[in-house]
């Protein structure tokens, strides 16, 4: 088990390195840098001015060197202006004398860089916004997982029954409704003058003070898309378990149906959904970005959109690190959890 986890963590780090390098490459292409220089300097910069800006900030070094600097394994860029002798150093924080700046400043030193859009340290932004998204995600999971499991178990308990068919239709409908569709419909029905105005169509105020009124719709929108998929997986796993020999034996022994479902079938039927729920996280991340944009909730997804739209390199890299780590860690947990839940599987 230990070796397995170690190996998985190794692969994980390799994947994270590859992915961040891809993001690094794509955000450091020359047109993107040019746009960055123009938004930071001014829109009518001449080509020479752009080049000198990029030179001063170390954007024109070879890609691998820049990547190393960002990681913190290569000394930070220091530029000395040949005419004025002014020094700009990557590692100098604002107001610090560039000559006193530390040599290394990267991810390994805990320095995530400086956001050009929000004018703040990336680590601060990410911490605050992740907290807000964490709140959203927590309520999504609280709503989504129990309802999905209940729907799936009820539907899979008796395959082909009327309840199965109506619940399955609901799950199919929910997987067919992406967040930007269900969000629009929910807002129209429950938060517009055309419908029944009991909730708020924006969740901006939920950042400080989340109430049912401003937070229910975003939570519901994300959960609705995920519920169907998890419920279908639970149903499939439940129907499979219900046809197993030991269930039949239990029934023939005279155990009541309720006890068969609750005590014999449920535990085994919940192994597969566990993996599915864990693998759902990348999709949830997707939903979070859409819903935060739709409801104007300023969390992680909103920051990601802002960073990507303005080519804020440090912030975008940090976002991708967080996203990739979330995805990979949930994958790891799903693998390990699967082994724990299912004793038949052994890892050599």
């Amino acid at each position, binding site marked *: 088990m230990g070796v397995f986890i170690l190996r998985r963590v190794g*692969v994980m780090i390799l*994947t994270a390195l*590859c*992915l961040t390098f*891809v*993001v690094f490459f*794509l*955000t450091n*292409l*020359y*047109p*993107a840098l*040019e*746009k960055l220089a123009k938004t930071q300097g001014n829109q009518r910069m001449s080509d020479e001015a752009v080049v000198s800006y990029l030179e001063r900030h170390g954007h024109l070094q070879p890609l691998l060197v820049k990547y190393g600097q960002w990681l913190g394994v290569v000394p930070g860029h220091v530029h000395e202006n040949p005419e004025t002798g002014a020094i700009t150093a990557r590692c100098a924080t604002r107001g610090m004398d560039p000559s006193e700046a530390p040599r290394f400043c990267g991810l390994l030193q805990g320095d995530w860089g400086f956001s050009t859009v929000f004018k703040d340290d990336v680590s601060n932004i990410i911490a605050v916004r992740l907290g807000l998204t964490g709140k959203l995600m927590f309520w999504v999971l609280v709503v989504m997982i129990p309802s999905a499991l209940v729907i799936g178990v009820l539907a899979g308990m*008796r395959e082909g*029954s*009327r*309840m199965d068919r*109506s619940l399955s239709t609901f799950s*199919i*409908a929910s997987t*067919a*409704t*992406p967040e*930007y*569709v269900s969000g*629009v*419909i929910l*807002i*129209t029905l429950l*938060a*517009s*003058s*055309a*419908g029944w*105005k009991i909730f708020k*169509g924006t969740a901006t105020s939920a950042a400080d003070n989340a109430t049912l009124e401003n937070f229910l719709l975003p939570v519901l929108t994300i959960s609705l898309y995920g519920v169907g998929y998890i419920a279908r997986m639970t149903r499939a796993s439940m129907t499979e378990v219900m046809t197993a020999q030991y269930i039949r034996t239990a029934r023939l022994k005279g155990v*009541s*149906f*309720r006890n068969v479902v609750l005590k014999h079938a449920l535990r085994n039927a919940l192994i597969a959904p566990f993996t599915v729920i864990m693998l759902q996280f*990348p999709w949830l*991340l*997707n939903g979070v*970005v*859409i819903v935060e*944009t*739709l409801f104007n909730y300023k969390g992680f*997804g909103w920051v*990601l*959109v802002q960073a*990507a*739209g303005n*080519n804020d390199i440090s912030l*975008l890299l940090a*976002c*991708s690190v967080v*996203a*990739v780590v979330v*995805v*990979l860690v949930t994958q790891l947990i799903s693998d390990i959890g699967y082994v724990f839940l299912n004793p038949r599987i052994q890892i050599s």
Partner: protein
Amino acid sequence: MEPLTWTGGLSVLDPVFLLAWVALGIAVVAQIVATFLAAEDIVEHEVSASTRKMAEYAVLGVKIIAGLILLLILVYVVGGILMPTLEAKGIVGTVSTRLLPVWIALLATFAVSIAFKRRLGLYGKLFDSMVGMIGFAIVMFWVFTAIFGAMDLIVTHDPLAQVSGMKNKVPGTALPDVEGAFPYYLLGGDNLARDVFSRVVKGAWEVVKVAPFATLFAFMVGITLGLPAAYFGGRLDTILSFVSNLILAFPVILLFYLLVTPEIVQTGIPVYMAAVLFIFPIIFMVILINSRFHVQPVKRSVYLVITLVLGLWIYSGVAWNADPLGLIEFPPNLLVVFVSVVFVNSPTVFRIVRGIALDIKTRDYVAAGQTRGEGPWYIMLWEILPNARGPLIVDFCLRIGYTTILLGTLGFFGLGLSPESPDWGSTINDGRKLLSVFPHPALAPAFSLMSLVLGLNLLADGLREESLRD
């Protein structure tokens, strides 16, 4: 002029229709409760006749009321076509009249398919399953709407034309000035005073022309890489699986933002990606033909030459926009969208194909093929692939739906397509800013997208059911 009402001359039926919906709601709740109670009784061996009877009544009630609602909808649709004037037709009737070519095409498709269903293989079997038929009907409805819409048979106005005074007007509003134009905005106007109905119909074409092909390309890539990964295993498998996991670990939206922004397009990366991704269908076809006919050199050469000439011609036009004959051209921003959607989808297809192939590889008929001396590519493409078709066809349908959702997501974030494009995602994005005041411009495309994806899901469900029955 007076605005159109929803149902026009058939509005006498409206109270009945509303009542039927209320009754349906009550009946469904009653049915769920009653069947639940009845089922509990069977469990505890206390079959009480009254609860079971109640459950049966509830089920019957739901069926009758649902039938009534369907009948009423049919009356609205057919009656709307038969009504003489636009005012008498109402919005529903006029829309249904505009959709007349679609209804005819749908009826023709169903009549022909049901008449010959025994000779049509899996496609014919689809017409044995109710769910499959409903799904197929919805999907074909949108396909026909898209095609006839692109031929300008359905749309009432130019989807880009703005008529002053029609900004955010509710459905059925009459145009202020009716010189030669269609006198009403059937589903209202959007925030730039364009006709919502025409935009939705044109938007269907945006989806129908991209989603199936993008999915097909993703399948070609996934199959061409997934089969050898499973069959040969070893280092090839390790590398390909690692790369596909790499792409899958990327949040889709981040990937879209990185690939579709104008700065990246300027560097030409999407074109190179297109060049790599679009070569796979040619490789696939060449291997397919070569492995089949390599014992008949004449046939093989003829087929290969035809495939290569056709394939490379289309390839040069689509991927490099350098068709020597100048016949094929692919709008650059559509190419970017196409490439990113294919890129996002192919790793998942790769995983599915690899999983199925790993399973089929251990079967006896594969071993028999190997002992007969069949080449590895022949076994992969002509022994394993045909036996994997069931799950792959089902996944294909599901994946078209997923691609539709992805395209909508791209539009929703305003990526790739031009801002004026009538595709559903962009239209929803336009409409969402004023959602709490004027919901109709966003609702129409939202419901369209939902129904199309729902149709594809139901179709996949029907296909799965029927292919399992084999």
